[in-house]
């Protein structure tokens, strides 16, 4: 194998700085996209399990639409197609004056996509809590909103903590798709360093270590939290 090894390359300027800023973008994308995914996904999960057919329909359509198109295609739709479909004024703004267009688009599209997955998790959590619990709440006179607030959601979130953590980590990994519209996040940066220095092995290894470490740490943290918040007498389901 013809290769010049140089493990110190990443600790030299400017490459170290590049990697750190790229990691920063990855983290930023992940957190902001997660905020969108979690809030929208929770609302959709509630709609999906609501007693009102119209709400269920809205949520189901959303989920089916966002679930059956690859994330990459969705990113392209938002970045290339959406601006064209707006009125001229908005179109111009999005294309020229909006700050950080690629970053914003990546965050929004990854967030909206993952919201559909979070919706399904919330739905399964609410179903796991059970119809009986819901009826018990209604039976004492609570409105549907109150039943969700005091009975269903608190327990549902405890149950789905492991799969929700998985969804966050999925966002973390999917942040790499932002590179296709020009965001120099972690994975893009390794490619860039490879092209500049030909030390691809070292660059890819660094990214690999970072991704694995983050996954490992988040999972470990989740297991700790899961153990502490588990209801007495229940056992937590393993991470999916």
């Amino acid at each position, binding site marked *: 194998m013809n290769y010049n090894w140089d493990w110190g390359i990443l600790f030299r300027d400017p490459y170290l700085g590049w990697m750190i800023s790229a990691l920063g973008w990855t983290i930023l994308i992940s957190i902001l996209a997660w905020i969108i995914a979690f809030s929208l996904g929770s609302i959709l999960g509630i709609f999906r399990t609501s007693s009102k057919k119209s709400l269920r329909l809205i949520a189901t359509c959303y989920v089916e639409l966002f*679930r059956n198109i690859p994330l*990459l295609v969705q990113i*392209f739709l938002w970045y290339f197609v959406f601006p064209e479909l707006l*009125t001229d004024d908005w179109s111009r703004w999005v294309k020229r004056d909006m700050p950080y267009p690629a970053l914003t688009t990546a965050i929004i599209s990854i967030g909206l996509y993952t919201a559909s997955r979070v919706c399904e998790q919330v739905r399964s959590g609410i179903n796991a809590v059970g119809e009986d619990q819901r009826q018990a709440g209604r039976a004492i006179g609570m409105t549907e909103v109150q039943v969700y607030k005091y009975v269903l959601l608190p327990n549902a979130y405890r149950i789905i903590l492991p799969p929700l953590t998985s969804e966050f980590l999925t966002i973390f990994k*999917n942040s*790499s798709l932002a590179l296709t519209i020009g965001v120099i996040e972690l994975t893009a940066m390794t*490619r860039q360093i490879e092209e500049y220095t030909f030390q691809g092995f070292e660059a890819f290894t660094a990214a690999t270590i970072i991704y694995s470490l983050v*996954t490992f740490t988040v999972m470990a943290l989740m297991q700790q939290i899961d153990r502490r918040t588990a209801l007495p007498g229940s056992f937590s389901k393993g991470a999916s």
Partner: protein
Amino acid sequence: MFELDFSVIPANSSLLWEGIKMTFLLTGLAIVGGIILGTFLALLRIAKIPVLSQFSAAYVNFFRSLPLILVIFWLFFLVPLIVGRPVGAFSSVLVAFILFEAAYYSEIIRAGINSVRLGQLAAARAMGLTYIQSMRYVILPQAFRAMTPILLTQAIILFQDTSLVYVVGLRDFLVSAEIVANRDQRLVEMFLFVALVYFVFCFAASLGVKYLQKRINNEL
């Protein structure tokens, strides 16, 4: 909003068709490879020898912590180095997909094997079947029967994941559509078309899986 001109699609139908074929080819081969390697990993994981089961667990956890794009880059970069000469994007990408998806398949298959009652293994061993024979004739057939809907769902996910070959320029459906889009300045039409095709196919496939799941549940 300007005029949409979809005529660019039939005009380039052969290029697009080649792209669709590539997508299906890659998906099909990756599914087969992924399930074979995944089954192997699942069997290693439940083996009584710690070295084997730890290796399998490490493999699965490792690949599940990485973005697919990074794995594609790794193989794209590594395979030519190891083989010693330039290798086409397709081979590197295929290996990347198989290694990656196998990690996900192995978890599904492992759950499937564990769902088969322990008594079945005892009954098979009691007749004198070896461990491998018991797996092959008694446990795995039942596991796969139960897990088929989930395996198919993962296949649909794999089908969508193949769009990521974009990053190495392999000419799948998405990349072919983009070529047409850039050449004829028809980004909106082409990307909408791609989204529509993916949606119709995946949605129909997911309905098929739901139907299959219902039939399996009724059989039990």
